[in-house]
């Protein structure tokens, strides 16, 4: 295979594998930038995948057709935001250890969603939705030499959504009053408070946005790749998204880059098994390559990655 052929295989695959991670990492970014650790991203993805699939199936059964999937995504966003309120309530109002609360979210999400699936369908997994998202070639753009096949061919709409959202989030976080406020709340909540910013409200917004984005990430995975929901639809992607967030130093574009890096490393390791040059490499090396590369990158050039200053601590009025 020529290099171009390999890239044409790997790059689009990297982009679509990265999309759910990107979306979820952006969610984590909102929460953590506001000062609330979110280890519950995995659970939020579960809730998103669940909501999207169940909504889509229900609407399809009601004859809604292709719009079902889009409404399913919307439902995921809303339900995800609501579900994340549990984490918000625990870590903002009840002063819970945010790591603990996040772990509880993960357990609760899988338990509850599978339990509900069993109640609703009498079995542990749903049927397949009929209106999945499929890959497409972007008209015109996909014909551009080199760039076309790499970035605009066989892409999912969710990939474009994710990248566009990353850019939007970047703008929101760094250039708008809302972004300035959410960052101030995560860095120095007392200061924000004295400036008349409602710390509690900002944190709830941060957490709910993480629910919305995390759920969208899970939903994106479900409607593109798996097409149905079961307890194993989300298997570790939430943790990878968390890793992407930290790897990307809590920066929207950084998180996007990290997610793409993960996607690329994984796609390469899979495709690698079929590249003549690499196919003689024992498969375990290819399997662990994405993770080892990440570690090496961190140790080598990414280095220290420090989160928002007030990350993880409940805000008590008047504390110093």
């Amino acid at each position, binding site marked *: 295979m020529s290099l171009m052929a390999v890239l044409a295989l790997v790059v689009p695959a990297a982009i679509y594998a990265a999309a759910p991670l990107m979306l979820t990492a952006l969610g984590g970014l909102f929460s953590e930038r506001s000062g609330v650790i979110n280890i519950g991203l995995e659970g939020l993805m579960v809730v998103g995948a669940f909501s999207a699939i169940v909504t889509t199936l229900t609407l399809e059964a009601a004859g809604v057709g292709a719009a079902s999937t889009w409404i399913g995504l919307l439902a995921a966003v809303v339900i995800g935001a609501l579900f994340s309120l549990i984490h918000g309530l625990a870590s903002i109002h009840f002063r819970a250890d945010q790591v603990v609360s996040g772990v509880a979210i993960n357990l609760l999400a899988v338990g509850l969603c599978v339990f509900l699936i069993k109640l609703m369908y009498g079995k542990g997994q749903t049927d397949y939705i009929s209106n999945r998202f499929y890959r497409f070639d972007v008209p015109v753009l996909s014909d551009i030499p080199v760039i076309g096949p790499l970035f605009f061919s066989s892409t999912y709409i969710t990939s474009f959504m994710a990248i566009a959202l990353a850019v939007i989030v970047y*703008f929101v976080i760094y*250039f*708008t*009053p809302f972004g*300035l*406020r959410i*960052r*101030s709340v995560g*860095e*120095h909540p*007392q*200061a*924000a*408070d*004295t*400036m*008349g*910013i409602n710390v509690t409200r900002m944190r709830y917004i941060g957490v709910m946005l993480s629910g919305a984005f995390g759920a969208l990430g899970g939903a994106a995975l479900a409607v593109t790749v798996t097409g149905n929901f079961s307890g194993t639809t989300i298997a570790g992607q939430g943790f990878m998204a968390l890793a992407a967030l930290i790897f990307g130093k809590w920066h929207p574009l950084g998180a996007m880059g990290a997610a793409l890096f993960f996607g690329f490393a994984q796609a390469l390791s899979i495709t690698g098994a079929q590249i003549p040059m690499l196919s003689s490499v024992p498969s375990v090396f290819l399997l662990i390559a994405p993770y080892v590369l990440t570690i090496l990158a961190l140790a080598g050039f990414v280095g220290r990655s420090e989160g928002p*200053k007030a990350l993880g601590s409940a805000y008590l*009025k*008047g504390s*110093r």
Partner: protein
Amino acid sequence: MSYVIEMNGIRKEFPGIVANDNITLQVKKGEIHALLGENGAGKSTLMNVLFGLYQPEKGEIKVRGEKVNITDPNAANRLGIGMVHQHFMLVEKFNVTENIILGSEPTKGGKINLKKAAKEVAEISKKYGLAVDPYAKVEDISVGMQQRAEILKTLYRGADILIFDEPTAVLTPQEIKELMGIMKTLVAEGKSIIMITHKLKEIKAICDRCTVIRRGVGIGTVDVADTDTQQLANMMVGREVNFKVDKTRSNPKETVLNVSDLTVKDSRGIEMVKSLSLNIRAGEIVGLAGVEGNGQSELIEAITGLKKIQSGTIELNGKKLNGLSPRKVTEAGVGHIPEDRHKLGLVLDFTVGENIALQTYYKKPLSKFFMMSYKAVYEKAEELIKDYDVRTPSAYTPARALSGGNQQKAIIAREVDRSPDLLIAAQPTRGLDVGAIETIHQRLVKERDKGRAVLLMSLELDEVLNVSDRIAVIYDGEIVDIVNAHETNEQQLGLLMAGGKAKAGETE
């Protein structure tokens, strides 16, 4: 008589403590009103009530004659009340302008209009003589500039009643002077100021009236012109206070610390200490005077092994300290009362006892063969708590629960008790009340008299002048001059600290 602020019968409780009990505070328009009291007297609490951070249990507040209910800082802002907090309320990662506009950002098409804001900030800062760089990141600027940013925050919001909570505790003499100028300008513009401070001289210098609080209770309000510092101090503490540090002439012996040609870089790679040389002998206190940021901190960190040195040597009793780890330096006989007691000096979540063991936990009798004897730890702690008068419910209380002064006393107890040949005290009285300061100064002199070498780093000229035997003035990483404390005065030191060695000579 009309008051801009009237706080009547304010009561504020915290779990287990009444921080403010029936306090009355009346501020006239256009005055600088001092609020005086020992550590923990309840000054900050009272001001936080005024600023809307706390809700009082009892009492009423009138602003410009009207009864108001200040529910949150926003409400205070709307009433034109601004506060410069004791611990700065600045987001370090933001630049000055971002900090100032936070919460009321000007926008253009949904985007923050930083340019416009910066221009506005520049205008205000020019008007009141508050020099700041609107685009500088807070983590990169001096404490003085940070404070100016804090003041700008309130002015930007149009405050005309300003609260300053211990504004001078962190400033250099020059900066204090500047601040006083600024405050006068502000009052001249018709603004009113409430200022919390422990420094009686400052009250005398610029305040019109002074309200004194003791243990949460209002003692009274006096016209500053009609009183002197001694009276103020007595009112505050409730007894006679002795300002002058009692000490005899020093009797220095052999050289203990010998620093020569020392160069140290900071984390950004800039040389903060440049070929510096300094000697300290047994039985003397050498004061290190200088404006903050001239290499004091780096010098001390280098001596104590916390910072790598670039070149030069540091010798203690003739033995090299260069390149030794902090543990080895400590063991060689250096005691260190660090500048930042919360960051370096204490493990706030440890008990007082555990904190007292911090330098010696690994040695007999506190531990044997890697086994800790907490019995020995707490026995030792009880002893030191008694000897050094650390006010704490018990040795098992977390250090976090102690007041700043008592935290400092615990650190001093720990460092002094090891009988180090060299005792380094960096800003040992920062933010403490006169009572606590008195004790600490006496302790330093006592150590000198026992034959220890003491290095006292302080930004307070008074302190340096009163406590030291010799004063080394540091400027831009170099010692510009060393003078005898009894042969110099504030003016001379001030000039030296500004880097003017030659000029200092001229004025003599």
